[in-house]
């Protein structure tokens, strides 16, 4: 009997410790719940294990501070955490936020969690990855605005850069993300449409957004086509693998690499003379524009249905400038929300 009561006491202590940890953790990072409701902004984005989404989070937080709204940012734990992301959104949807910024993992995974938000008439700002229009319609969701990169145009700009790098033309290979991925497809499509007739595409492979897989694939392609002049790669992470494969083959400088994204490591690689160019997206700006859109929507303004986020081509000519202003764009861009907020 005595042993049991000791155990009981011990267990209560353990539970109390757990409770203190939880409340302490929660208190340390209080950015959301609590104070008066309707001007608060909730944002649910993709996993913070990727620098792209970390930059997006910073953009959201910095802009919220600038325009004076309070924001709570929650993120998925990984790129496969589709239901976890929906759970988090649902938890926030039950609270009194005035506006929701969402970057869904897939076109549909947040649709049913968004249904009550839309029914309550709250604005939904969709950033980066678009929500499937078909699914949104079936669930009766109204998206206030979409802010994201035009990936076809990004591929097009990469093609123009490749044309400049290879004035006499030649053979190039394309390395995409996961087969069937819309973003990857659009970038490759834009590139294929944009290149001049002198440049021929000899091969297209899917490297699953994985640096290691891209490295292996690029090595194989270089052996199969010894006269290859360039690679177009669908994101920077894979491009860094391709750059490595070119160095391993002893062809540094002879084979050009152009990619899309503009992560810091890629900019550094350009500075070091390895990567030729990247079409830089600005997740920081996408996040910031999301907050501006929320602020405008809360002020009762009508938002444009679709806003294209800025992309800029970074080469060895302007890389110093790009690195200096990272994660913000190094030149001005069109921002319709700025006008709405005036």
């Amino acid at each position: 009997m005595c042993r049991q009561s000791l155990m009981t006491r011990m267990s209560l202590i353990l539970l109390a410790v757990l409770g203190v940890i939880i409340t302490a953790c929660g208190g340390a990072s209080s950015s959301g719940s609590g104070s008066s409701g309707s001007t608060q902004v909730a944002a649910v984005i993709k996993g913070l294990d990727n620098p792209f989404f970390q930059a997006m989070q910073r953009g959201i937080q910095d802009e919220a501070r600038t325009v004076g709204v309070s924001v709570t940012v929650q993120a998925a734990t990984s790129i496969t955490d589709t239901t976890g992301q929906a759970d988090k959104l649902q938890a926030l949807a039950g609270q009194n936020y005035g506006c929701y910024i969402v970057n869904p993992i897939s076109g549909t995974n947040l649709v049913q969690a968004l249904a009550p938000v839309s029914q309550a008439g709250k604005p939904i700002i969709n950033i980066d990855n678009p929500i499937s229009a078909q699914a949104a319609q079936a669930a009766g969701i109204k998206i206030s605005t979409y802010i994201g990169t035009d990936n076809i145009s990004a591929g097009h700009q990469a093609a123009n850069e490749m044309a400049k790098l290879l004035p006499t033309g030649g053979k190039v290979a394309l390395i995409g993300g996961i087969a069937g991925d819309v973003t990857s497809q659009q970038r490759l499509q834009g590139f294929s449409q944009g290149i001049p007739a002198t440049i021929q595409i000899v091969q297209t492979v899917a490297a699953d957004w994985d640096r290691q897989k891209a490295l292996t694939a690029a090595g194989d392609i270089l052996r199969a086509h010894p006269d290859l002049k360039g690679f177009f790669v669908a994101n920077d992470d894979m491009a860094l693998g391709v750059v490595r494969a070119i160095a391993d083959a002893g062809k540094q400088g002879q084979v050009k690499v152009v990619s899309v994204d503009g992560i810091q490591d890629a900019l550094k690689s350009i500075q070091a003379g390895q990567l030729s160019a990247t079409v830089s997206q600005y997740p920081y700006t996408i996040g910031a524009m999301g907050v501006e859109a929320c602020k405008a929507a809360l002020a009762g303004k009508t938002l444009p249905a679709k806003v294209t986020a800025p992309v800029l081509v970074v080469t060895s000519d302007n890389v110093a400038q790009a690195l200096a202003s990272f994660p913000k764009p190094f030149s001005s861009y069109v921002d319709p929300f700025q006008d709405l907020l005036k």
Partner: protein
Amino acid sequence: MEQSNTPVTALPAQAERLSWRERLSDPEFWINWTAVIALAVLVIIFGIASPAFLSFGNIRAVLVAAALLVILTVGQTFVILTGGIDLSLASTMTWAGVVLGQVVAHGGPIGLACLLAIIAGLLVGLINGLLVAWGRIPDFIATLGTLSAASGAALIFSNGEPVTIVSTFLLQLATGSLGPLPYFVLIALLVVLLGHFLLFYTRFGTHLLATGGDAEAARAMGIRTAGIKLAAYLLAGGLAGLAAILFTARIGAAEPAVDTSYLLNSVAAVVLGGVSLFGGRGTIAGPAAGALLLTVLVNGLTLLGLSQFYQPVVVGLAVVLAALLVRYWR
């Protein structure tokens, strides 16, 4: 965990004869109810820390979010009660979801797609059961093999591409409710009740606990332990198929990528639920409460605005603390 090898089956009928005082002093009681008590404590803490936590909308959201894990956990519990473990659970769910998606993509009716999803789950369960019961391969290895094979099959069948499913039936399933009870919660509740009934009120349940407690002795008593093990894996596979339907309904698409957190969380929930990992002892309600606990933890931390980097740490702490409690009570 030192324990006797005799199958201790604390049948509710026996337990009811004991007085409250006797029950409270029985360590088995505390082990079985760890998750429920911890859950109650958490609800109180979060209720005080966040005013939104106990709102109707949030409670509903938590229960809906927990439904999937509860269903998978019940399947995992049956396998662990036989002394095994099903590592293929999350992959099986993904594979069954892909089967559902492909049937719909090829113009099949949604009813048939759901049926085939469950059959796809049962198929993996059958393979697991045959490998373990008749192939005499350790559970860990057999299901590790099917974990990989099922995730590969999902990629092959889907060609690595997610299939968007816009079905009014699935959307209704995900968002609709019967009175105040969302369909997801209703299904999970039914699974728990049926699981509880199967384990404690049928001969199959008693044989299952006996098999997990001491397979040798069970065989000597004439219990067909191989058949029992096969049945447990079939149950787990079938429930993974059912979970796949809910999963697809929730995210509106059949995704070929496996979310392994479901596997780890199902095992964690079973541990929280006081089930012995050596088999033969445990309940269904305990692990179900464990699954709910894990979901409540993430929900509460999200409401409090705790960074997602810290959330897994707190979840890990909770699981280890629960295991420690069980350890010291034994």
